[in-house]
């Protein structure tokens, strides 16, 4: 339905469960994809799976210089960056009273500051092209909060505010900036939970199941499409009804 043929997309955190499916979905819709992540092996694997129109762009988002250079490398590899998906994220959980400055700062740096730097770099080319799509992957906990995740919740709420500010700055240039906020999604991270933990989580989800990575990817493809050109500054919640916001 949504055709991204001829568009180029840079996806961070493409080695992870959700990021890989976002890249797959954008690629399936016709886009050229730049796969970014810290670990090269899974990126190479994904690129091999996708075949043509896939580029590996390894980058450690906790290193400012690498972040600054990533969009440029994307442009060199793909000719442009029409679509930017800031999906990469880390957690350093712990109750606030026991949270170190380092754990606070590293989560804010990677999740929020790196996303900002990539937006800033990507917008330059998008302004010239008078077209762009930025999709920032937030989280339901950015709105609801979650004990043990003060740093993560702050970073994810920060992405929403940042996206709204950016959206209003660049709307007149055909660039949209939106967020997708996943709820509980089946990934390697949630696989580690035991049945009792899963049961506890699912009791809070009206849909009665966890979401699947491809359900996040579908939301991203929509926001990346030409059809979504009038949607900007929005947060699309994909959470099975666990928070109706």
């Amino acid at each position, binding site marked *: 339905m949504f055709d991204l043929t001829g568009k180029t997309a840079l996806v961070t955190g493409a080695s992870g469960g959700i990021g890989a499916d976002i890249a797959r979905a954008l690629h399936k819709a016709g886009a050229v994809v730049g796969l970014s992540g810290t670990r090269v092996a899974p990126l190479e694997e994904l690129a091999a799976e996708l075949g043509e129109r896939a580029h590996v762009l390894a980058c450690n988002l906790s290193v400012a210089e690498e972040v600054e250079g990533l969009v440029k490398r994307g442009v060199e590899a793909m000719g442009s960056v029409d679509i930017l998906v800031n999906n990469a994220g880390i957690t350093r959980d712990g109750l606030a009273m026991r949270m170190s400055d380092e754990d606070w700062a590293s989560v804010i740096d990677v999740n929020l500051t790196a996303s900002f730097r990539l937006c800033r770099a990507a917008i*330059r080319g998008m*302004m010239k092209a008078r077209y762009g799509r930025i999709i920032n992957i937030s989280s339901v906990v950015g709105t609801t909060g979650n004990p043990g995740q003060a740093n993560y919740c702050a970073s994810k709420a920060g992405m929403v505010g940042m996206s709204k500010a950016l959206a209003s*700055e*660049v709307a*007149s*240039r055909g660039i949209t900036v939106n967020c997708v906020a996943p709820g509980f999604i089946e990934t390697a991270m949630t696989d580690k939970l035991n049945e009792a933990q899963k049961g506890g989580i699912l009791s809070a989800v009206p849909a009665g199941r966890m979401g699947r990575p491809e359900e996040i990817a579908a939301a991203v493809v929509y926001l990346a499409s030409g059809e979504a050109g009038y949607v900007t500054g929005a947060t699309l919640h994909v959470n099975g009804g666990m928070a109706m916001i």
Partner: protein
Amino acid sequence: MSDIADRVKKIVVEHLGVEEDKVTETASFIDDLGADSLDTVELVMAFEEEFGIEIPDDAAETIQTFGDAVGFISKAV
């Protein structure tokens, strides 16, 4: 007209989509040439790229007219 002024004018004409004869020495980007705040940022970035210079924010704020831009860039290159 100097080479710098020609290059600046070309950028302004292309970017703002205005007639070349409107881009006079005293023409204000915002008041006379229809630029918005985002346009002025884009213009400064285009000047930086074209001339390989850095225009700090406080200097950028002083560049209001075509003449300001040519003057600043002539000193900076």
